[in-house]
């Protein structure tokens, strides 16, 4: 495909009035994606994790918060394949419940952080006038102490959010917002740098010369071209969000205490690292696997989306 077209192809006037098949692009994308071995492995792994976590509870019906005090601190058994915790709750069920929360928070917070970061980065890079002020804003956010910021957010918004969305959804929104609002800065910096370089490219001038407005310019030309750094930020963003969520829960700023998440399971288990090492291993492995699969997925997507690499 990418090989050079012989000169004859340019002369032969093909009169095939083939209408443009718009769907072939997606086929092509998939074809490209599937060719990337790492991406495929990552995608399958991620799919397995997501499926287990979301569909698992239909097959493993134990309630993650059911306390079976006689089975405390049990190692893996037939009844509890992943063992139990200090109150006798089933770790497997808790892992799945925790995974649902962690994955949702991770992805939602990452998306939020990415959207803010990309928006700030693109705006700063594209509109010179706003550059100074937006970058100083980024500095400000980098400098803000996280904990007091979160405390203020929780204080101001927990009740209104719980009232409007119910306690769990309310907290979910709050946590996602908190993590998203405090993690967009590196993305913004990187994107801004790329946009600045992009702006100097001639096709931007060309696009302007055909009357493309600023908004169209950003949507059509800037965003697709800064996708690659955004992908990297996305990968790191998920890991960061999952870990930050655990820190928040630990500080009492996160989900209610009976609400398991991977980060929290890991944190709670560290005290038992000697008695029940498997309790640390499960969440640790789950987080690492998720991040790893997302990383490979991101690599593959980036390659698939970059037309220059396609067909290699």
């Amino acid at each position: 495909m990418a090989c050079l077209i012989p000169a004859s192809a340019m002369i032969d006037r093909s009169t095939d009035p083939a209408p443009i098949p718009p769907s072939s692009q997606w086929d092509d994308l998939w074809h490209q994606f599937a060719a990337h071995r790492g991406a495929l492995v990552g995608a399958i792994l991620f799919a397995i994790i997501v499926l287990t976590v979301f569909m698992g509870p239909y097959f493993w019906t134990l309630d993650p918060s059911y306390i079976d005090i006689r089975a405390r601190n049990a190692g893996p058994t037939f009844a509890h394949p992943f063992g139990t915790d200090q109150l006798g709750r089933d770790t497997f069920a808790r892992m799945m419940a925790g995974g649902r929360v962690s994955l949702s928070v991770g992805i939602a917070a990452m998306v939020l952080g990415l959207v803010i970061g990309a928006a700030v980065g693109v705006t700063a890079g594209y509109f010179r006038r706003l550059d100074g002020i937006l970058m100083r804003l980024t500095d400000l956010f980098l400098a803000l102490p996280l904990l007091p910021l979160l405390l203020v957010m929780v204080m101001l918004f927990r009740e209104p959010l719980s009232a409007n969305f119910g306690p769990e959804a309310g907290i979910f929104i709050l946590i996602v917002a908190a993590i998203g609002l405090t993690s967009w800065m590196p993305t913004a910096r990187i994107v801004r740098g790329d946009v600045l370089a992009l702006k100097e490219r001639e096709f931007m001038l060309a696009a302007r010369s055909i009357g493309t407005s600023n908004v169209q310019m950003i949507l059509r030309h800037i965003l697709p071209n800064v996708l690659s750094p955004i992908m990297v930020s996305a990968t790191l963003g998920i890991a960061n969000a999952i870990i930050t969520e655990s820190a928040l829960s630990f500080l009492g700023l996160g989900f209610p205490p009976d609400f398991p998440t991977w980060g929290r399971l890991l944190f709670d288990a560290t005290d038992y690292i000697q008695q029940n090492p498997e309790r640390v291993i499960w969440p640790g492995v789950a987080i690492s696997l998720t991040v790893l699969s997302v990383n490979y997925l991101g690599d593959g997507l980036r390659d698939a989306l970059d037309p220059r690499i396609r067909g290699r």
Partner: protein
Amino acid sequence: MLTFTSRRLAFAIPTLLFISFVIFMLLELAPGDPMSQLPLTVPPDVRDRMREALGLGEPTHIRFGKWLWQFFVVEPLHMIDAAFGTGFAAEQQRVISWQTRSPVMDIVLQRLPQTLWVVGLSYVVGVLIALPIGIYSAYRQYSLFDQLGTFISMVGFSVPTFFTGILLIVIFSVKLGWFPSIYDTTLVVNSWDSFVQQLRQMVMPVSVLALYNAAQISRFMRASMLDNLHQDYVRTARAKGLTERTVVLVHVLRNSMIPVVTVIALGVPQVFGGAIITEQVFKVNGLGQLLITSIQANDLPMVQTLTFIFALLIVVFNVIADVLYGLLDPRIRYD
């Protein structure tokens, strides 16, 4: 270059004032109270008296103004006094921590050594590990080494330090007894033995943090190397008959370092901010621990000053990163 730097620094001053104001208001808004650590047996009226004594009764803007004056005038004067034995700041009150009732800056200076030793060294070690890994991963892209490097750095990034730290302690302190689990900040290195002891107590925190830092930086290094390895000038260098070593480690590396050096420079403020969790796990009691205990105790002057110093470093290192960029890349000219 010089004018660029000084211009950037001059513009940093209003920025910093604004940042300090925002931080102040944020802390002001945050719930919690410096009296939260008192036992419940202390009656409310006593708590109120204590608050008054801390100056909490005064309006916010006056307290902010006071802080500004103390931080920007009294503290520097005091430093001059300490250095030259003069007496400019004699009667002026310095920024006083609510928790310890002592000058904030003294405590900060006291905490600096261990933070620099542990966090700073781990950053250096992290960078030193990350660079070769990043270089080699890129040079042999998709090789086994590269895959392994990716794997390890992703795991390093995704496993929280509170976990790796405790794991190391359980293995090396509890089971093997090789390293102490508690960092001794009072250790004075003045002999071979104390030096060895210092090394022993630094091994674990430094390696935990270094792994985390290395994971991130090696990713940047790899990406940057990949960008440069296929540039035309690399072919020119090869056409001169240079060895692969020279081509990669001189020509490519120098170009790849440009973005990475700025990334590294931008990470330095974090070193001074301390690594809160790792410091906690290994009881290093550096600046990170200071910040977190002050936040927990709602010691506003301390938190305000620490975060402001942190903001200052961020702004300064932003400028440094830009200047470095200009120094390393001759194509960039600021004026």
